[in-house]
């Protein structure tokens, strides 16, 4: 009886392997068949016209459907308010937003699948535009699936001249070609509680506080002073991470070797020190504890936050009675008005979304017009900032606002746009790599165990390498 089972198992595995062999040999021929078949089935004229001669005869060859892949409806809102509603969309073209949520890497999986099948997809199902974030931008920028915004899409140097340099660096491929463009700039600052600064430093004036925090050594000294008065310098482990990781001396990967930058190790040592000495609250980003540290009861000196974070997240968290429950965003509600911003020890950015045109699109004209209007046009971008308080990627427009008599009640009357405008040109993102998303996540995750005292530093570093090599088998330790 046992023999029969094993015989069954054997035949099963034999069948399986022989089938597998067939499957293996068939797959390549399948795909080639699909790719060669595609042009004949899917309107050959349109493809050729779109990829080879985007400028000529655009009116007649433009596809009827423009598909935009994204993970939320933020860009859709901008597109509708500042492109579709003013009537800039040519007649007869439908714009589809294909939203796949980020959760569990689903967005990138769906986008990759679509891009890899781009050749065989019907013209109206092809990806025309897709959105990306800074952490993984180079994965798409360094690929053949994204188009040159100048050479292919037709934006000019003049169009792009007012964009902040760092927003271009992030989407510039290894041969120096810019392949994406964004409407946002997200320079970061250090937002601090005025009352706590007064108690610790004796002043809440942004210039003087900046003098006290202008490098990491001074920052540490203030942390010690704050602890003496019963305050915490930072809320959690990851608060200062971006400030360190944006200022590395070299990219994460040298050839195929993972290199942990000195600045990142500085973050590790500083955070461990802060944790052991009680200078932080051991929270993590977005946790309720972290948010409540920004509220009226908070005892935390300050937070590293960029444009959107200050105007929306921090403001929302600072209120005693939320706006949704009838509270007003005004002085007297929670710690509204008790905040101020300064540049902090190092320049950094946090957030942002870039637009890319996909190779194989048949809507170059419209994409050109969308990119030009939403990411290059000074008037539109100034209007976006005025309407939504979103900080936009146009130096001329932002400097205009910075030099106005703009005042933020939330920041006790400070003109923080001026500080943003000052900080943004100093951000240097020439050291980003296609591996940033995965490696930063693994690094922060592994180090949390060290901060929590579960493992020592060496073990945490080992865990980091293990996790990194799982994600990127092509890299080495």
């Amino acid at each position, binding site marked *: 009886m046992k023999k029969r089972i094993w015989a069954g198992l054997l035949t099963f595995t034999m069948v399986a392997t022989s089938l597998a062999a067939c499957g293996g040999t068939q797959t390549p021929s399948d795909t080639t068949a699909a790719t060669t078949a595609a042009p004949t089935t899917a309107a050959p004229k349109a493809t050729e016209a779109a990829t080879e001669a985007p400028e000529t005869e655009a009116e007649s060859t433009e596809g009827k459907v423009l598909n935009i892949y994204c993970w939320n409806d*933020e860009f859709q809102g901008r597109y509708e308010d500042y492109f579709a509603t003013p009537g800039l969309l040519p007649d007869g073209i439908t714009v589809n937003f294909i939203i*796949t*949520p980020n959760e569990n890497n*689903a*967005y990138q999986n769906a986008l990759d*699948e679509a891009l890899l099948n781009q050749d065989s997809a019907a013209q109206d199902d092809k990806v025309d535009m897709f959105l990306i974030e800074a952490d993984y931008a180079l994965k798409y920028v360094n690929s053949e699936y994204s188009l040159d915004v100048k050479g292919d899409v037709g934006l000019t140097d003049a169009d792009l001249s007012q964009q902040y340099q760092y927003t271009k660096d992030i989407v510039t491929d290894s041969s120096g070609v810019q392949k994406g463009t964004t409407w946002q700039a997200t320079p970061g600052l250090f937002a601090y509680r005025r009352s706590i600064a007064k108690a610790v430093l004796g002043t809440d004036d942004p210039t003087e506080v900046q003098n006290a925090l202008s490098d990491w050594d001074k920052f540490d000294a203030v942390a010690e002073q704050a602890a003496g008065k019963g305050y915490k310098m930072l809320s959690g482990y990851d608060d200062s991470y971006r400030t360190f990781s944006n200022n590395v001396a070299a990219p994460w990967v040298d050839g195929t070797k993972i290199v942990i930058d000195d600045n990142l190790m500085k973050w590790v040592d500083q955070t461990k020190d802060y944790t052991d000495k009680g200078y932080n609250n051991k929270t993590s980003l977005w946790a309720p504890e972290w948010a409540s540290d920004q509220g009226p009861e908070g005892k935390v000196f300050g937070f590293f936050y960029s444009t959107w974070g200050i105007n929306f997240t921090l403001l929302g*968290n600072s*209120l005693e009675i939320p706006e*949704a429950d009838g509270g007003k965003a005004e002085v007297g509600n929670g710690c509204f008005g008790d905040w101020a911003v300064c540049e902090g020890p190092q320049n950094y950015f946090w957030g942002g979304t870039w637009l890319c045109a996909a190779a194989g699109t048949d809507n170059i004209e419209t994409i050109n017009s969308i990119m030009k209007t939403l990411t290059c046009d000074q008037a539109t971008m100034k209007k976006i900032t005025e309407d939504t308080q979103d900080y936009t990627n146009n130096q001329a427009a932002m400097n205009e606002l910075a030099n106005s008599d703009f005042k933020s009640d939330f920041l006790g009357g400070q003109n923080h746009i001026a500080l943003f405008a000052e900080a943004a040109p100093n951000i240097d993102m020439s050291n980003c790599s296609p591996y940033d998303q995965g490696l930063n996540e693994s690094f922060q995750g592994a180090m949390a165990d060290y901060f929590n005292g579960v493992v020592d530093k060496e073990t945490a570093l080992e865990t980091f390498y293990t996790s990194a090599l799982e994600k990127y088998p092509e890299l080495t330790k």
Partner: protein
Amino acid sequence: MDNGSKSRIILKIERFLCYLFLAFLTVLSLFSFYVLIINATRAHPDIQKGFSFLPGKSMLNNLNSILKNKNLPVLHGIANSFIVSGSTALLTTYFSAMTAYAIHAYEFKLKKAAFLFIMMIMMIPNQVTTLGFISLMGKMKLMDSLIPLIVPSIAAPVVFYFMKSYMEASLPIEIVEAARIDGSGEFRTFNQIILPIIKPAMAVQGIFAFVGGWNNYFVPSLIIKSANKKTLPILIAQLRSADFLKFDMGQVYMLIAIAIVPVIFVYLCLSKFIIRGVTVGAVKG
């Protein structure tokens, strides 16, 4: 007499302890629902500030923002989830029962091989084949369709195994033979005699399959693209990955609460059916 009253007292104490323990489990089971409902009525910054036992004032606000959101077709989502989970439950119970019946009631050459094969594939984790499945669906032009979420449930080794075990325990082969003597065709016997007997098993697995289909996120998130075909878990994930301006835990909790109502409703209907089905089954003995 004395003995009787003594055992009655013991019985009462036993009962009391049973109820006490059951009450504890009830609290444990319902507590997450309580938190869910409370949070669905609170505003985002309020939730971020920490836990509260008392409801907030933002219930209508949260509900309105969800229903008004053009990119969040909640009603479509409910309908799609119903189509997927309902069909899954029907197909998986019916065909698994059929497969189990084939193994249970018939004698044929490849029977053992077939049984062994199903038992082996039962042990393969689903996650293993997901990526291959997705690219296969791409080649079969079944992307952005509900079919890949429904039809594969016909071959469900775990449900098959349950049906087989249930039949072993409560379906004597004599019933089949009696039907044959009465001149009933095989297919008719299965549909009209066997299925009613294993109704409780079908209801149990039906619930499991329905709930599983209702809450499935990973595969649908990779297959479905157009907004009107999205199922509820995708919409929840979408709301959770909203941008900073719109990210709102109150709305997330509200949508989770909305998503859970239909499944509770179906569950309550089917759970009554289980109890009834079991009593009907018991009469036969």
